[in-house]
Every structure is written in C-alpha cells, then in structure tokens.
C-alpha cells in the first residue's frame, strides 16, 4: 500500500477507535442515568431517591391489583421476584397492563416507600405468537417461554 494511503488508513482507524473509546467512557459514567427505571430490588435496597421523580419497572405481581369502586384509583405491586414495590395510581391504565406482565410506573416514592405514580406504561416483552399457540402452551402447562410451570 502506498505510504500516504497507509497513513490515512491509520488515521481512519484511529478516529473510529478513539471516538468509540470516548463515547464508551461517557456511557459508562452515565450508566445509572441511562436506565429508564429502577428495578424493585434497588428500591428496596434504598438506592432510589425518595421524593424525587423516578420510574420503577418490573412485573405486576399476581393478585396484587386492587381497583377502587368509586374512582380510577388503582393499586398494585411491581416485583422482580426478589423485592416488590407498592404502587398507587389514579388514571387510565394501558390496555396491555395486566398481572404477570411487565409495567413501568413513573412518579415519586413517599416516606412509606409507596410509589405515587403519575403515569403507568405497559412493557411488552419479546414474545410474539398466535392466540392458539399461547392457549396450547397454557393447556400443556407451559408458560409463554415454553418452560413448564
């Protein structure tokens, strides 16, 4: 290779590696801030700030959804199967919100460790299948990932 071109090639490789390293370090420094939500176990460990806007994400615990009869008030528990966080919310839940499904709640933690949510989002997982397949899996005693329950 011509020496001038070789020099330019080295420069190109250097630009790519150097900018990757720089941005990689920035992302590493910001890793906590890039996460969209706190998992319940981090909240339980006291890593989440109290009284500041934050999001908590996890699975909606089975049987934990309690709806108020006379208002839109609803309470449920988000869990990562190690710890759980109580959430209260007044408003309309997304259609795909359900127990045993992922959800992200945004709001503030009060002094009792309860998340007073101002927004609840359903988190969809990566499983796509026709309804018949889902029913067949359920009938044979498997969850949606094909593992026996």
């Amino acid at each position, binding site marked *: 290779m011509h020496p001038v*071109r070789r020099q*330019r*090639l080295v*420069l*190109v490789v250097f*630009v*790519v590696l150097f*900018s*990757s390293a720089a*941005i*990689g370090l920035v*992302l590493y420094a910001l*890793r906590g801030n*890039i*996460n*969209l*939500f*706190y*998992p319940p176990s981090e909240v339980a460990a006291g890593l989440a700030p109290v009284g500041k806007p934050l999001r908590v*994400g996890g699975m909606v615990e089975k049987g934990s959804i309690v709806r108020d009869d006379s208002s839109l008030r609803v309470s449920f528990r988000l869990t990562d199967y190690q710890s759980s966080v109580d959430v209260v919310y007044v408003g309309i*839940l*997304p*259609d*795909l*919100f359900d127990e045993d*499904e992922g959800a*992200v709640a945004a709001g503030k933690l009060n002094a009792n460790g309860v998340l007073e949510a101002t*927004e*609840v*989002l*359903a*988190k*969809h*997982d*990566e*499983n*796509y*299948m*026709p*309804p*018949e*397949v*889902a*029913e067949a899996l359920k009938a044979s005693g498997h969850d*949606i*990932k094909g593992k026996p329950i």
Partner: protein
Amino acid sequence: MWSFFHKLGSPPWLYSIAGTILRWLLPITLVVLVAGAVWGLLYTPPDFRQGNSYRIMYIHVPTAVVALAGYYVMAIAGAISLIWRMKMADVAMRAAAPIGAMLTFLALVTGAIWGKPTWGTWWEWDARITSMLVLFFLYLGVMVLYDAYDNKEAAGRACAVLSLVGTVNIPIIYKSVDWWYSLHQPASIKFTGESTIDSSMLYPLLLMIVAFYALYTCCLLMNMRTELLRREARTGWVRRLIVEEGKG
C-alpha cells in the same frame, strides 16, 4: 480484478452498470415487497396479547434494521473516499445519507404509532429510542454538512469523518435494550438460540427484511446515478447521453 476497481472509478461505466442492475433489481424488489407486505398484513395470525397492532412490525423492523446497516454503507464509503480519494465512494456516501435518514424517520414514526396502543405512550426517552433519534440526526448532519461547503472535496472529507465518528452509535442502538433497563423489548429474532417469535409471524418478517435491503440497494443506485449526472453535468459523456436519450 484490479481492472474492475478501475472501472468502478469511471463515472460513465458506473452510471450504465447501475442502470443495468436497476432494470432487473427494481421489479424483483417490488414483487418481494408486495408479497411480504400482503403475507405479513393479511395472512399471519394475530398476536395473543397485542391482537393486530403488532403487524406494524412488518414495516418497523425492516426499516430499523436497514437504517442501521445503511449507516455502515455510508461510513465505509466515507472511509474509502478518505483513504483512496475515490470519487465514486464520495458519491455513494452522499447518496446513502438521505435514504438512511428516511428509513430512520420511518422506524421512529412506526415505533411511536405502535407504542401508543402497546405501552400507552407515543414517546419515552429510553435508551433504544433516544439512540435511534441520534442516528436520525447523524444522517441529517451528514446531509447538511455536505451542502454547507462550497468546496465539495472538503465537504466529502468532513462528512466522511462525521460518519466514521457516528459508527459508534450503531452497536449502542443494537445493544441498548440489553445493556440498560429500557421500555423497548429485547430482539425477538435471535442469531444464536431460538427466536421468541412464532415461525408463522417470523417468515414474512424475514421476507420483508430482505425486501427492504433490496429496496435500499435500488434507492442507493438511483440516488448515485442522479448525483453522478449532477457532478458530471459539464462532461462529454453526459452530453452524449442526453443527445441519445433525445433521439430515442
């Protein structure tokens, strides 16, 4: 072998070979695109949780995949024009930017349309969505930077450096859903291990991805031909081409 590369550097040869490829590739692309869209939108079962709204993935996933791959096309073309000062690589880089921007824009819009019924929000500043927005701005940045220079050689070099720096964003977009807690779900199509999407939904999706790669190639070749005519407007071969077109 080397004569091929020398020919690749010749504008009239590139213009005519791109035209020949397009004559074949364009009809094939349209057939595959229509077949994939009809299969995906009409002949696949609904999803057990989302019902029919998941079908937007037959546009969303291919546009996002090709938007990422297209960035490498642009950056590699930029690197070639930086190192070997090959003018045709510069043409390819400039031609790739608007197509990539369009695909990224479509991926963002279709994602928002899917997000509203699924998540309950049009937009969330999560790692995947934000890094995809950065990709859109990178594509726009290359387009605007190129047009900002009067000296097109300097423009090509500046854009090549910008696109090379931007390549770091591609693995970030791809791995964002695994590295951080995000609202966007991880990939359903897996290169290793079993995909978490039923095969009746997966095959039309793969067909649509192939169709979008072909569509990308067609758009790139068409854009390159236009760019070549613009740059070579004063040369003899373009004049002869126009005279011939006029006769025919």
